């Protein structure tokens, strides 16, 4: 049979089955089980109405239970068993075996890197686009273009970016955009401007931002608290942690500026971008940022529109400049939405699998947890370690998921 016809039959059977289930089950409830007539009509109607919600909920509860809840417990059980020993209980052996593998820690480290960079970059870029396109006539066109990658699957996007990062021999035409651009640099003035001065300027701006962050977090400690109110007990350690973190990033960026000017760049040689350790992680992250920026932009754009215009006008009269208005009036008012967007993207990032699988398959130090799990479960056929990796991912996702649901519900109120 033609697959198209098979598909059509599936749709008809599926949708028809759903309709049939809801119709017939309600008919059964109202006509046979508790008919709304006879001496007990009133009691029967009440009982039927108590049962009815469960009729509607049953298919979803059944399917979710079978395909989501049960696998969680089964995976937990499998993570304590060993397949080669016929499924015998082995305690935490799988976990300790996993912890001894450098590939697992590489995946953990990369996942953390993804976790920091992708949500931050996507949310920041989305917020920037939402703010910049808010008042311009062609803003909606720009937003549509930036939103479009959302319609592309992760694997499709990976294929597109594999072409961007593609490498050909030096005597052939480069079909990868990145290499084509790279080969146009020859160490002359343009190369100095774009590959040394421009990144240095960006890093310098970042360093200055970090310095400002250190100043902001330490100011109350040195020059005394705000005019009013006692700080909470956790304010002091938090301020110190933030300041130390910012100082570390400051040192890192200054160091990078130094190495930018001392490094010898291999001009004229096509690069295989996805095999450059550490940096190839960022080349993979770009794909997800490219997709998720559209999502962040749409949600944050709606939130920005929801800010009452009068509060902005009041701030203008109070003497606020555009930066004050953005950072002190607009962002605090949409903070709840920013947190929801951030955590939602974080959940996507924790489960990231397709992009790594399709582009590098975890080679060249790009392994992530989900791909590691897939490797163990379906390539090494080791259900024990694979399940253990799955449980680790779940443990990482759960707190963020709860936090996300909590925030989303708070926003809705």
């Amino acid at each position, binding site marked *: 049979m033609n697959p198209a016809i098979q598909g059509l039959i599936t749709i008809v059977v599926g949708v028809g089955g759903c309709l049939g289930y809801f119709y017939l089950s309600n008919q059964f409830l109202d006509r046979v089980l508790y008919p709304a007539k006879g001496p007990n009509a009133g009691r029967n109607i009440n009982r039927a109405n108590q049962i009815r919600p469960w009729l509607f909920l049953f298919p979803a509860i059944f399917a979710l239970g079978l395909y989501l809840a049960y696998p969680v417990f089964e995976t937990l059980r499998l993570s304590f068993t060993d397949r080669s020993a016929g499924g015998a209980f082995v305690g935490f052996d799988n976990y300790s075996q996993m912890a001894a593998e450098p590939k697992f820690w590489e995946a953990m480290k990369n996942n953390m890197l993804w976790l920091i960079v992708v949500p931050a970059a996507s949310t920041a870029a989305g917020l920037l686009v939402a703010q910049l396109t808010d008042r311009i006539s062609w803003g909606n066109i720009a937003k549509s273009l930036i939103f479009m990658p959302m319609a592309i699957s992760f694997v499709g996007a990976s294929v597109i970016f594999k072409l961007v990062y593609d490498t050909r021999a030096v005597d052939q035409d480069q079909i990868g955009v990145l290499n084509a651009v790279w080969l146009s640099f020859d160490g002359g003035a343009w190369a100095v401007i774009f590959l040394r001065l421009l990144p240095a300027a960006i890093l310098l701006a970042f360093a200055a931002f970090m310095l400002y962050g250190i100043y902001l977090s330490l100011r109350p400690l040195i020059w005394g608290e705000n005019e009013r109110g006692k700080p909470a007990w956790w304010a002091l350690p938090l301020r110190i942690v933030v300041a130390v973190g910012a100082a570390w990033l400051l040192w890192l960026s200054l160091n990078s500026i130094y190495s930018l000017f001392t490094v010898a760049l291999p001009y004229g040689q096509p690069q295989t971008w996805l095999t450059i350790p550490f940096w190839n992680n960022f080349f993979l992250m770009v794909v997800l940022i490219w997709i998720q920026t559209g999502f962040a932009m749409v949600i944050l754009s709606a939130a920005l529109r929801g800010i*009452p215009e*009068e*509060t902005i*006008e009041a701030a203008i*009269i109070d003497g606020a400049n555009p930066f004050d208005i953005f950072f002190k009036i607009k962002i605090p*008012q949409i903070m709840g939405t920013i947190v929801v967007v951030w955590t939602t993207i974080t959940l996507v990032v924790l489960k990231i699998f397709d992009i790594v699988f399709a582009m590098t398959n975890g080679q060249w130090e790009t392994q992530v947890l989900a791909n590691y799990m897939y490797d163990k479960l379906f390539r090494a056929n080791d259900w024990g370690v694979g399940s253990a990796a799955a449980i680790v991912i779940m443990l990482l996702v759960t707190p963020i998921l709860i936090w996300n649901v909590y925030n989303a519900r708070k926003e809705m109120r």
Partner: protein
Amino acid sequence: MANLQLRDVRKAYGNLEILHGINLDIKSGEFIVFVGPSGCGKSTLLRTIAGLEQITGGTLEIDNTVVNDMPPSERGIAMVFQSYALYPHMTVYDNMAFGMRLAGKTKQEIEERVKYAAGILQLEPYLDRLPKALSGGQRQRVAIGRAICRDPKVFLFDEPLSNLDAALRVATRIEIAKLSENMPNTTMIYVTHDQVEAMTLADRIVVLKDGYVEQVGPPMELYLHPGNLFVAQFIGSPAMNILPAKIAKAGKTTQVEYVGGRKASVPVETPAGAAGQDISFGVRPEDLLVAKGTDALFVGKVDYVEQLGEVQLVYLDIGREDEPLVVKLAGNVEVKRGEEMRFDADPGDLHIFDGDGRSFARERLAVAAE
């Protein structure tokens, strides 16, 4: 302490002109109320003074400095918005301190000023609360406090009481009146569509319509001597009765012929040769009195009575289709539907307006105002 001069101020959005050359002198320390129906441009005028809208023509001076291109924060103004416009993420204290922090004031100065404003408005217990934990009246007081903290030369109020319920509106109105008394050097400009607020608060009222100034003057002057038909009907509630009429005899006192050939003499001068001209003849519902004798200005059957307690509104059918004469009588006078009644008025309370709606008494007014 600042005076304002508006010279031919115009505001247009594209080809649509909203304000058609407003001229206005506001003295230092005055309480000015802009009043008019929806869409008359009163809010736009206030926003141009605030600097939230750029004017497209004319000059705007605050304290003898042209401020056409000056940003709002440097004009020495503070504004209270209809929706309060409090920063929802800041406490009451931070709301009031925000502007001063941006201006780089010292902590001590900020604390002093916030305490001062909070003291005036009885906001001390709420300084650490967020706006969402306050009632509507408290929020409006915070908005006023935020304006006080800016220590402005000119206060701008954009319908500040519209979002409050009736009882709170009266209380806050009195509070604003007291505030203006306590700050005699601060100029206040107040926008409202409610004539009660205008009458009770203003030193001078500016009546606006369709982007033009209709009349400027103290509340009682507008009430007693409206310059034109619009002002006559806008100020006062219920609105002034206006009847079509003709001048029977012009002169020092004018004889007017109105509904059903009745005649009245009005002590307002009309130019010779105006006889026969079509005019409007007006008298306020509250100026009409039950006539003692048989000779009366208006005679008719009572069509309908609205009893409001302390007063009642009597709708008298005087032979005009669907346009009864409205009379405001004390609530304790017994009036029956269908009863025939006669009403008279003091000749000084009668108004006449020419074919363009301008008051015949306006020249005398202009002279009196000089």
